């Protein structure tokens, strides 16, 4: 069989159908819309089933910890009566050290049930380790594909740590250089092995995360007799927001606002060989966060079940330096040494808690393990080696890829609020651009409205304004 790039890419529909067990064509409604709920229900697991499957392998039921010292510190710089109670869901307590075990657990269980002998995942982050760990537990083989090196063969230390973790769990790891051709390798490996594609974006991956939102709501309800007022979620590909928000809804926490937080890496190109090692965060950043909100169907499966824009109420950005500072605070004030990337949402929570009343409850829904390669000292050493300046100062002066500013005080923490209507407009525009010259029907407008958490009027007005720009 022809294994050249173009030949393999041309076989992608067949390869992915075999590798996921899902006929995505079945859920297409029009050139623009698809049956999202139908796709999510195509893997028939109730939330209770998922909880049991996760429990079998020691995933989930992680502690909800109130960060009393951090809360007091935030209150000391807040207006009178302000400063919500901050809780964190200690997801580092999962077997491979992050919430990604929830995504991997159900997918690997499902793969085994369907008779696959192994699983393949493309991930340079915690998800790869989670798939490797779950595959070990269920007796399946695993192959993890990682984007690790630039063309000088300099590896991002956090990703080198993930190579080590995956190999510790017995995976075959492909360490690749920078480039979107990772998808080609994935198809090639899936075709060669006939393994399951444990994509981050298949239904089982999202169903696994629903347990996180559900659990945290139940824990807050049991401990405090009420639902959380705000749940803060690190955002990259959208799965974390999607699963968590769906879980909250299932638990009846319909009034909890769901806030996405990403590290601001504006100006750095994600597929650039030279920018690759000028960033200190390999996920949870705007390089994934923004493109995945404005167009989720850019993944390794035809339709992405992680649809952040459907579920996000607000989107805010923090700086790399603010997250490193927060990581230090969590260790020194709360006795929890955790990985920086997992503290992205906590850095956002410092500012968000100041907006809320003292009686209100804010939940940061994850932490992650830390290790060599992940520590702030490791990342900042690497940043300097790659020509990035590191200094104390005002985070307003942060410049991704050039200067990392560690704030002098937490009063200097500032959120950059992303304009949600603008993101929704970009999403609608992208949908029209991709399907041009197709004219959206009223059903399509309904789909776009649900998919972007906007009113049908907003979608119709956006479409009208876009076509008037074209006419002009």
């Amino acid at each position, binding site marked *: 069989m022809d294994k050249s790039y173009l030949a393999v890419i041309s076989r992608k529909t067949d390869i992915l159908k075999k590798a996921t067990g899902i006929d995505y064509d079945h859920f297409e409604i029009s050139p623009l819309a698809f049956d999202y709920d139908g796709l999510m229900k195509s893997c028939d697991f109730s939330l209770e089933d998922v909880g049991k499957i996760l429990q079998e392998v020691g995933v989930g039921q992680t502690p909800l910890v109130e960060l009393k010292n951090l809360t007091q510190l935030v209150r000391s710089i807040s207006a009178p009566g302000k400063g919500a109670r901050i809780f964190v869901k200690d997801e580092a307590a999962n077997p491979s050290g992050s919430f990604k075990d929830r995504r991997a657990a159900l997918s690997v269980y499902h793969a085994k049930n369907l008779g696959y002998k192994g699983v393949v995942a493309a991930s340079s982050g915690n998800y790869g380790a989670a798939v490797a760990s779950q595959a070990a537990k269920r007796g399946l083989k695993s192959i993890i594909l990682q984007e690790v090196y630039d063309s000088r063969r300099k590896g991002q230390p956090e990703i080198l740590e993930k*190579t080590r973790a995956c*190999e510790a769990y017995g995976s075959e*790891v492909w*360490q690749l*250089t920078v*480039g*979107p051709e990772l998808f080609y390798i994935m198809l090639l490996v899936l075709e060669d092995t006939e393994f399951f594609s444990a994509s981050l974006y298949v239904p089982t991956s999202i169903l696994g995360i629903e347990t996180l939102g559900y659990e945290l709501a139940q824990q807050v309800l049991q401990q405090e007799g009420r639902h959380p007022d705000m749940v803060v979620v690190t955002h990259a590909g959208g799965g974390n927001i999607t699963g968590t928000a769906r879980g909250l809804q299932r638990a009846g926490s319909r009034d909890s606002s769901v806030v996405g937080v990403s590290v601001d890496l504006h100006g750095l190109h994600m597929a*650039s060989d030279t920018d690759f090692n000028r960033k200190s965060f390999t996920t949870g950043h705007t390089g994934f966060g923004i493109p995945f909100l404005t167009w989720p169907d850019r993944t390794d499966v035809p339709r992405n079940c992680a649809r952040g824009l459907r579920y996000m109420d607000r989107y805010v950005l923090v700086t790399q330096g603010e997250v490193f500072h927060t990581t230090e605070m969590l260790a020194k004030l709360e006795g929890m040494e955790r990985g920086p990337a997992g503290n992205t949402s906590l850095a956002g929570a410092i500012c968000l808690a100041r907006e809320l009343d003292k009686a209100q409850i804010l939940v940061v829904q994850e932490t992650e393990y830390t290790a060599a*390669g992940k520590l702030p000292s490791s990342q900042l050493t690497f940043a300097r080696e790659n020509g990035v300046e590191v200094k104390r100062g005002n985070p307003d002066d942060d410049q991704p890829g050039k200067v990392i500013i560690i704030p002098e005080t937490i009063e200097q923490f500032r959120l950059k609020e992303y304009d949600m209507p603008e993101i929704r407009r970009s999403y609608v525009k992208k949908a029209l651009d991709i399907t041009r010259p197709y004219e959206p029907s009223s059903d399509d407008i309904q789909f776009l409205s649900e998919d972007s958490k906007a009113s049908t009027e907003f979608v119709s007005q956006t479409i009208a304004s876009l076509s008037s720009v074209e006419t002009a």
Partner: protein
Amino acid sequence: MLDAKKGDLVKIHKIILEPDERTGNLPSSTKSVPYECWIKGFLLDKNAKLGNEVKIETFIGREISGTLFEVNPTYDHNFGEPQKEILSVGNEVKHLLKKSQNESKGV
């Protein structure tokens, strides 16, 4: 001299795509370099030198061929050097917390 013998843990290197075979929509810094990969496994050849074409058996038992790149590959990522910009953060916030606790107690 031989660098590796059968059964040794080794790392192989493969060039997947040469620069002119890479996909169209790439920044020039990426498009001008080959797409490469490294994979670990146990050497299947009787013996080999660095740079030889060899076969390995990966950790899941698959056979893959490539150029012998490293013998006994070691993880060399580490904890980094102490960073003065973050070393003082802990004491700063502890001091502020103490001050706030004292104020709320009316000390």
